[in-house]
């Protein structure tokens, strides 16, 4: 009983419940939903699909988590994805040998370089000029898609290149390459933030920038760094996205992904007010959102009700997670005296 109570009190309990409910609902509708079979020598099935699809959002949310931890926000991620796809695919398309690994590698490096510049630019506006993050990144959010379209000439650039296609559609050891890529980045970020002091310094800057600066923390450098990282992760997400459809669609690549990413971060328990962040939480948040989109199709929610359904899920998860409801549930279970509302001194 106390074990269960402990469990329900965990921050990620309700998001995980939501995940399970969505999976169950989908299975009820389509009985083979949770089945994973081997097809063409790799795993196939909805769970694998969810993993593969999560990769893009996970990469974006990963960077977003770090940015949010410093009290910032990055609205430009979608545009950065578009630019990454545009730069890379235009280069691959114009090369004489689009199928060569070297072509793809060079093109991707160029994409990374361009996104790096954008990240540096965002970081400069926020950390050095002190422009509010939301407005600083709005600049690239607006102009970025224009830049991407400029690169592709306003067209959707389609390519055929086997190595590039592998990024999103390939399998390695039976698992989707995209999921592996995202997984590796996730692990690296988790390791770096928790094994070095980066994590705690990011949190410290997010909680109290003035005090951190006085404590000698390089607040400016740290903030700058997280925007660069965020752009780089978005860039890789852009690779995966463009590889997924084998086309650079500057207008639609990563459209509104910033909202999904922020939602994932917050469902995962990281506060938009900065400070403590949880990468595991972000992972759970990403899985919830990806599953939600897939199950909308599988369950067969009518087109006009999709938004309502999304609203419902978000509201229910957040309500259940909220301190007040948690407290009510606990009190009900234990029939105990009210616990004081915690107010920091």
């Amino acid at each position: 009983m106390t074990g269960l109570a402990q469990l329900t009190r965990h921050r990620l309990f309700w998001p995980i419940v939501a995940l399970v409910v969505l999976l169950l609902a989908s299975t009820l509708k389509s009985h083979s939903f949770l089945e994973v079979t081997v097809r063409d020598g790799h795993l196939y099935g909805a769970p694998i699909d969810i993993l593969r699809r999560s990769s893009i959002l996970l990469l974006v949310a990963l960077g977003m988590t770090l940015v949010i931890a410093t009290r910032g926000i990055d609205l430009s991620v979608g545009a950065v994805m578009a630019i990454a796809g545009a730069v890379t695919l235009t280069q691959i398309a114009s090369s004489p040998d689009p199928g060569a690994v070297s072509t793809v590698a060079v093109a991707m490096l160029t994409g990374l370089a361009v996104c790096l510049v954008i990240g540096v630019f965002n970081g400069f506006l926020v950390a050095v000029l002190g422009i509010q993050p939301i407005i600083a990144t709005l600049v690239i959010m607006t102009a970025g898609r224009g830049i991407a379209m400029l690169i592709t000439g306003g067209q959707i650039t389609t390519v055929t290149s086997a190595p590039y296609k592998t990024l999103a559609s390939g399998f390695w050891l039976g698992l989707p390459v995209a999921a592996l890529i995202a997984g590796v980045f996730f692990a690296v970020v988790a390791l770096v933030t928790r094994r070095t002091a980066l994590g705690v310094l990011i949190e410290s800057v997010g909680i109290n920038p003035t005090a951190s600066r006085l404590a000698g923390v390089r607040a400016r450098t740290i903030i700058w760094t997280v925007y660069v990282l965020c752009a780089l992760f978005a860039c890789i997400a852009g690779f995966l996205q463009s590889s997924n459809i084998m086309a650079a669609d500057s207008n639609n690549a990563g459209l509104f992904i910033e909202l999904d990413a922020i939602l994932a971060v917050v469902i995962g328990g990281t506060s938009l007010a900065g400070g403590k962040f949880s990468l595991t939480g972000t992972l759970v948040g990403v899985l919830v959102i990806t599953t939600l989109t897939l199950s909308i199709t599988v369950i067969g929610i009518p087109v006009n009700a999709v938004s309502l359904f999304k609203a419902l899920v978000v509201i229910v998860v957040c309500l259940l997670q909220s301190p007040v409801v948690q407290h009510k549930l606990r009190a009900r279970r234990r029939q105990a005296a009210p616990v004081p509302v915690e107010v920091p001194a």
Partner: protein
Amino acid sequence: SSGDDKTADPGSTSSEGSSGGDAISVGFSQVGAESGWRAANTKSIQDTLTKDAGFDLKFSDAQQKQENQIQAIRSYIAQGVQYIAFSPVVETGWDAVLQEAKAANIPVILTDRAVDTADTSLYVTFIGSDFVEEGKRVGQWVSDNLGTEPINVVELQGTTGSAPAIDRKQGFEDATKDNANIKIIASQTGDFTRDGGKKVMEGFLQANPDIDVVYAHNDDMGLGAIEAIEAAGKKPGVDIKIVTIDGVKDGMTALADGKINYIVECNPLLGPDLAKIIKTLHDGGTVEPRIVTQDGAFDQEQAKAALPDRQY
């Protein structure tokens, strides 16, 4: 109801100043650049209404926002252009601003999408396609060629609430409702994008083991669906038939490759027609109030033949 006649003047007085020479000044307000089709449409207009052809084109992109479009049209009126052309974002809500244009004696030409107004004197003509008709033609082809035995159809809808999505859905349903063999088993929005098309198709494939036909409201979603079908280990165009609307280059290529089965064209090259209409009006002529473009339709063989000369 607005009719502020006193400000009607700037149209004629300032056009001399701003346009220079004998060039005909035209303000064109585009919806946005949301798809390959739209990009081709924009390019066609910008390439036709050039200085050399005797036009002074003012172009603006409304980024899918009606307010931007209204703002742009008002600004054209203020700038005193001689003609205004635009592709409305929505069908409704143009009366007031068109009244202003009318009061300023600026003829208005609608391209691609129609407006919903009781007062047809507000615009000179509409030139473009008929979305319902497009849906019907696809539906008819499916009914005639595939609907001879029971088939399951899934539909990839355009952006929820947008006119093409509503009309193309409507047209298809109208054309197929009498054929008992055709069953639409799922319908979901793919937002007119490849990514959306692929995502939704993946879901459809998970939920329904026996899909026979995919009806996509545009080529891009159809192309996305191809990716999903291939990833699921099936052959697009063979195991699952695909029918779409638009006929952009990538779509036509896929059609020629046998991955799509039928495309109803929605011609984006409205530039030449628009130029012709404006010239006619400028020379004092009259034009038909509604000019529906001659759209083709292609099956795989026709696509192979047509592909080499496609401009977009």
